């Protein structure tokens, strides 16, 4: 008799409303991923064919892009972050702000602006064909096409690494560099032997984000005709109509993602190694000579030129040529769709992230922490995988509830999928803020007799408002840019600025895509300006 009673009391103690809510929300966030895994086991009519013919190409192309884009982003991001963090030169503040701007450019928009450069090469292909034959011309064209795709992806994705490294470099303690100097080391040796190794976790985290963005890429690879796994899912799901084969390709993509996450986790375990660099006097910047300043300015100019000025310049020109042919009522409606959808989801998602972070704070047990960490990993999962998982999930709900296409073709489905995908973006900073800023204050509030709910509203909410706003803006920018997930899940006849622009570009009306692209970029740039200012203030604190 006593045992069940004890068990009930144990449950009463352990299971409170915060924990139950966290588990329910976390399970919902994990559900699309689970649907992908369940779907893989079903029979697929086309799988054998896909495996024998196109799968090796999808995998090879994905690997090639990861390798070369990863390499080129290092060249763009590492030196510029180092110069901005460690040296004083004319233009440093300008570069500090502007080098993050390419983040506002969606990769598919950059692809529109770069693609017609291939047309300029036609005389070269003709010359090669006449001189060395048709296969040589095909090879040359393919190399240039892949090369151009790698350059454009690298030039808009490098800010992930730049931001992460810039923050890490700025937080490094001067004593390590002073010791290195006293041992007679040059600035180059200090960078190579001290600065970069100390920033290793940030380096790996930034690079992992870039790799995951490359795995997730759809618009640019589709436009350049480079079939990767994402493109494969679209072709299999919508072209061949084989959902299970699509889910299996999604499973292979997840394998890539888990490898990246595993490597990142392995590196993070060494974080303690660099924690010593978080306290003490920060590095004071070294002034550069005038000649060195000119060189550094030129070096910083290159990624900004490729990743922002060139695409935006072309878009402005095209928008000028084509603005009169837009039906402004259509344009206004698509803009409103994008803005409302992005704003509403960003607000709801941020509130959920805030709530989940608080649940994680209240329940510091390793099991709850691990569960919530897995449930908020959506950013690592490609948008297309989340989209097919959500379709499967809501398809089941519709079927079993007897409401055909009620949920799976609705705005709710798209909002849900955005929440799954972008939860990480908001959850990570809020959770970190709660751990760092509020740790003692939470306990103090409890010791002053206040409940969890009152602590949440009176302490955490006011203290984390800036972080919450920054998280919401990041999510807003990401949703405005998001393409593959929106393409799959949008209700019939529903367009956002991203799908509207992509539709024009796909039909060869690139000039017409310029105006919606510029609106997406402008909103993104304004958001990034705020985020950059926030990051600066956090670092100065």
């Amino acid at each position, binding site marked *: 008799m006593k045992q069940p009673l004890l068990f009930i009391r144990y449950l009463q*103690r352990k299971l409170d409303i915060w924990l139950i809510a966290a588990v329910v929300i976390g399970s919902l966030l994990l559900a699309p991923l689970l649907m992908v895994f369940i779907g893989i086991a079903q029979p697929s009519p086309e799988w054998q064919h896909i495996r024998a013919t196109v799968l090796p190409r999808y995998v090879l192309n994905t690997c090639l892009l990861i390798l070369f884009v990863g390499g080129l982003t290092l060249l763009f991001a590492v030196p510029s972050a180092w110069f901005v963090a460690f040296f004083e030169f004319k233009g440093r503040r300008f570069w500090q702000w502007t080098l993050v701007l390419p983040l506002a450019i969606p990769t598919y928009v950059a692809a529109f602006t770069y693609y017609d450069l291939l047309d300029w090469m036609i005389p070269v292909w003709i010359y090669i064909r006449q001189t060395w034959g048709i296969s040589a011309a095909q090879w040359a064209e393919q190399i240039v096409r892949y090369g151009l795709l790698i350059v454009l992806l690298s030039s808009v994705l490098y800010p992930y690494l730049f931001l992460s490294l810039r923050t890490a470099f700025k937080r490094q303690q001067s004593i390590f560099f002073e010791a290195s100097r006293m041992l007679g080391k040059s600035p180059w040796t200090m960078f190579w032997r001290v600065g970069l190794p100390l920033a290793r976790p940030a380096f790996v985290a930034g690079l992992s984000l870039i790799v995951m963005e490359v795995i997730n890429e759809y618009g640019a690879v589709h436009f350049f005709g480079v079939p990767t796994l994402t493109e494969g899912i679209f072709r299999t799901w919508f072209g061949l109509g084989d959902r299970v084969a699509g889910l299996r390709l999604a499973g292979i993509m997840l394998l890539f993602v888990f490898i990246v996450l595993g490597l990142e986790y392995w590196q993070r375990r060494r974080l303690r190694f660099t924690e010593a660099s978080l306290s003490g006097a920060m590095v004071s910047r070294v002034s550069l000579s005038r000649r060195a300043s000119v060189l550094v300015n030129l070096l910083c100019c290159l990624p900004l030129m490729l990743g922002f000025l060139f695409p935006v310049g072309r878009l402005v020109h095209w928008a000028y040529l084509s603005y009169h042919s837009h039906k402004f009522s259509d344009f206004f409606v698509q803009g409103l769709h994008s803005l409302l959808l992005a704003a509403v989801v960003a607000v709801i998602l941020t509130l959920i992230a805030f709530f989940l972070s608080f649940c994680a704070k209240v329940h510091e047990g390793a099991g709850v922490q691990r569960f919530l960490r897995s449930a908020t990993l959506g950013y690592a999962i490609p948008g297309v995988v989340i989209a097919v998982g959500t379709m499967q999930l809501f398809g089941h709900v519709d079927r079993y509830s007897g409401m055909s296409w009620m949920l799976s073709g609705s705005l709710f489905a798209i909002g849900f999928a955005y929440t799954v995908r972008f939860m990480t973006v908001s959850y990570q900073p809020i959770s970190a803020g709660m751990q760092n800023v509020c740790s*003692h204050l939470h*306990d*103090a509030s*409890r*010791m002053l*007799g*206040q409940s969890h709910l009152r602590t949440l509203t*009176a302490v955490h909410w006011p*203290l984390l408002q800036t972080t919450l706003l920054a998280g919401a803006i990041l999510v807003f920018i990401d949703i405005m840019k998001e393409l593959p997930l929106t393409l799959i899940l949008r209700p019939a006849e529903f367009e956002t600025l991203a799908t509207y622009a992509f539709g024009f570009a796909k039909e060869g009306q690139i000039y017409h895509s310029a105006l919606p692209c510029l609106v997406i970029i402008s909103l993104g740039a304004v958001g990034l300006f705020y985020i950059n200012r926030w990051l600066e203030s956090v670092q100065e604190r």
Partner: protein
Amino acid sequence: MMLEVKSIWKTYANCSNAAVCDVSLQVANGAFTALVGESGSGKTTLLRMIAGLQVPDKGAVLLNGQQVAGGDAWIPPEKRGVGMVFQGGALFPHLTVEKNIAYGLSHLSRSERAATVREYLELARLPTAARRYPHELSGGERQRIALVRALAPKPNLLLLDEPFSNLDVALKAALREEVHSILRAKQMTAILVTHDPRDAHSFGDRIVIMRAGIIEQQGTRQTVVENPSNAYCAQLLH
């Protein structure tokens, strides 16, 4: 007896050794107890279990004879009637001094709250600091406000977690005296956690020495200082 801790244990998930193992402790009404030990000795963990901020793996905590932790009993920290002063003060940076003190007084009416805040500002000898924010106070002022904030809800037991650790030597000595007199005036029962033997000497009627999760020695100040049970205790307090 105000506080009884019975054979309490705590092991952290990522650590093979127990942070607190089989510790028992009694604190009488109105007594000042100093809990002394080096970093990692388990003194803060013990204090947090008494406060209810951590759940013991085994053992029991009793406050005024009522079991608040252990077995199937659990009373959350906000309902134990225990106050705590944190290392560094933990004043809410977004609230003024008066709002910080009033934070734990939500059960009082507005006028009672205002009167209590005034009373405790006087006690902290900072009557004009009501509208100031924590960052506008000096280190000593911040700790005095943290102390009166913890005292304002009239707890039965006050826990002080290394409240003097971030202060310079002169300020530390002055504040130590001041805290002592405030607590005496309020007839509080208090436990002070510290790694500084001077704090223990001047604060504790009783001294408890902890090392590696266990109690090495406990007793009145005179007994512990004059008759240390082993070389470690002798070295720690001298």
